[in-house]
């Protein structure tokens, strides 16, 4: 099978049962994408497929031979970090780092969704996303971080989104 990953072509002898995640980790040697559950429950495996965030453990490689797959390695390198990667470092948006590639890929996809005007579950106005802290939190809730760097993850994303820090109005404050 042939794949385009981070702008490069790869050929791999994958099984039809091979997920995109296992393709990346076991066949292509890109281990930046993490396996936390293999069941679409944690988000550690999040990559971008044609620009959209996808749990790569939940989709089969064989279905994506004509797609553009972008992984954490394709966003930036230790010496040349993507702005979100740099913001995660600056804000300590991680601890063990295992959920982190998924968080960052998810954040890239999420910011694009917000830019396109896709509302979130907590958007006050379905026409205009304001990317409030509550929205960032809700939109990022498919990515579990057991180290619980959540406040720092929100800080990092907010900074890259160009929003000023604000009091975080979580549910319970709507009355």
């Amino acid at each position, binding site marked *: 099978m042939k794949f385009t990953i981070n702008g490069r072509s790869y050929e791999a002898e994958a099984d039809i049962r091979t997920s995109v995640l296992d393709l990346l980790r076991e066949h292509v040697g890109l281990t930046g994408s993490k396996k936390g*559950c293999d069941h679409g429950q944690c988000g550690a495996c999040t990559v971008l497929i044609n620009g959209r965030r996808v749990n790569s453990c939940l989709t089969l490689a064989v279905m994506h031979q004509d797609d553009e797959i972008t992984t954490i390695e394709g966003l930036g390198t230790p010496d040349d970090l993507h702005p979100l990667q740099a913001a995660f470092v600056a804000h*300590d948006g991680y601890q063990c*780092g295992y959920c982190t590639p998924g968080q960052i890929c998810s954040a890239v996809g999420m910011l694009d969704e917000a830019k396109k005007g896709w509302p979130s579950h907590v958007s006050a106005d379905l026409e205009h996303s304001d990317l409030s802290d509550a929205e960032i939190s809700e939109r990022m809730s498919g990515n579990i971080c057991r180290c619980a760097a*959540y406040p720092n993850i929100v800080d990092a994303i907010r900074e890259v989104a160009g929003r000023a820090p604000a009091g975080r109005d979580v549910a319970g404050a709507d009355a």
Partner: protein
Amino acid sequence: MLGLDKGDHVTLTMDEAHPVSLLDTGVQGVIGKPLSRVDGPDKVSGAATYAAEYALDDLAYGVLVGAAIGKGRVVSIDAAAAKAMPGVIDVVTDFDTFIRVSQQGGETEAPTQGVRDIEYFGEIIAIVVAETFEAARDAAERLPVEYERGDGVFAFSMDDARDGDLPTNIVPARTEQGDIDQAMRDAAVSVDVTYTTPSQNSAAMEPHASIATWEGDSLTLYGAYQMPTSDAQQLAESLGIAADKVRIIAHFIGGGFGSKLGIAPESVAAAVAAKRLGRPVKAVMMRQQVFDATVRRSNTSQRMRLAARADGTLIGIGHETTASNLSTEDFFEPAGISTHFLYAGDNRLVSHDLVRLNWLLSGSMRAPGEAVGLLGLECAVDELAMALDIDPIELRRINEPARDPEKDVDFSSRALMPALDTGAKRFGWEQRPVRPGTRREGEWLIGMGVAAAARANMLMETSAKVAIHPDGSVTVSSAMTDIGTGSYTILTQVAAEMLGVPMDRITMELGDTNDVPAAGSGGSWGACSSGSAIYLACEALRGKLARAMDVAEAALTLKDGRAIGDNRSTPIGDLVGDGIEAIGTIKPGEQEELFTQASYGAHFAEVAVNRVTGETRVRRMLGVFAAGRILNEKTARSQCLGGMTFGIGAALTEDLIHDTRTGKLVNRDLAEYHVPVNADVPQLEVVFLPERDIHANPIHAKGIGELGICGAGAAIANAIYNATAIRVRGFPITLDKLIAALPAV
């Protein structure tokens, strides 16, 4: 080597206080600073390599098979059927060698071995090895296994027999002082209530993983392990080989929270399979297997008795915990650990007991003891405050002990009241509704709660080697680990401050048992133990540099890679010839007995409880902590955020449910076992109080990784009571437990 004998090895046993720390006189100016992690760029770009990510030649994939019964025996495994499937190499089991349970942290023996007998659902009985992961997974799922079912005990009941007499686990199983029963009779006001907490899972994001590879009779295991030095000993004992034949490599670990303290079943399975096949084998536990067959925090039932005079003075404290474990295992959840020293009161009973069940092993999860023990104690104190009509902070002030209330010793340092007072001011405690259930905002009921945080401090024997090279760069090496705690960074800061070397000139080599031994990461001892070992090695090197420069050690200043003294300034590389090195070793000593050492803090929470649905939202949380010297404000804060969030999970959502017919976990994955997600966690606030603890270690720091969880859930529970006037004594406080008692809408 110049001016330093090879093998220069300094050992300090903490028998005496260590009033002077060179970190206070260092001029590099990095200690304590909120520096970003040195391993950060690797972590955010996918370049950090975790256990399952080493690409070895000829690697075979192993998938574990767990027992499908809760008690009984394996009669047969039909390996031939699995081997007939394409790509499958072998089905490997060894009924004697495979470990039945994970090992507890720090043990040097093998855990209980032997997997023909099934003691709990999911016990790992075999490993299917194939050329690909997909082939191994399919074959493992279809492996025919014949069992003989036995009678097990699958439901926890306080009516069941208990041990009554258990060996010490961090604390003695039972201590008694005075007469708690009499104190309860004499009390003007008392509380006698039982709190329960469920089984919990650490749920580190990286599943347990091992790659085993043999070279002759030597094993190298790339493993996700918190304590490689003792893990290697456990592994060697399990395999029946000498400890020096096992090397564990664990450069990056995707979280542990106690679950990776001791070896887990995948390690031995991978090692046995690799040996038998003559090629490296990778075994990564499925998420469900991590739940089923690693380790849980035990459920607890805690009877809390508090006896007070009318003025709030405690005359008695009783904390009797019943937890559960397998019949072969002695570990009990030491829930009363901080009840020993948190409050004054003459009559005291702190006890622990076990009900024996066919549930998976119980062992350490973040802050074993306090994490659930303070749910009981701090909620009971809140109940007493209500009964006495005294502010909960004032009640704690009334019962603040001058010395350890059980031992005839002083506290090494204790900032509980300063933490409570600082927090009260910052959080706006005076705005708390004094009468519960009285503040409403639309359909939400609003309340505030407070709880004390306390975590016993530990120091563990640990070594580190520090080398200064001729180019002035420095290498630090040790079998210490970084499980997300920030070891790479804070230990670099210690070395940089001690040697006056810029951070980027220091290479920190961690996570390899070929380096000098360390206690690893656990019990919040990592930073203090390893930091102290590095301190000692650097202190020795400073002496050598002073001699090489011919200045008095006290007159030597080290900064930016230069040694300055006697009006001269020299690059340190010029003073070390071919290079110098020293090993530092720290050991716990009498200071542990002479002083009660702990970190303290205070948690404040504001919650909103929905009057219609019973849903609780945490709106705000503040943690104020004093844990000796803070080595890096940024990573320390993150540790506290993580702990506080574990507290949110314990208070509101985390509940591992066992099927009472088989012991099987009902919610054995991340969709059903609810750890907090981003939207559950508000913008938490963390404040550190300046503190030094000269009795703890030469760097004057204390553990912080677990302090954040201690008491956090209790502050939330107390806030829920303040919001609703409903006291739920069974954790987690899910909406079904509130809704019936909420006022009609």
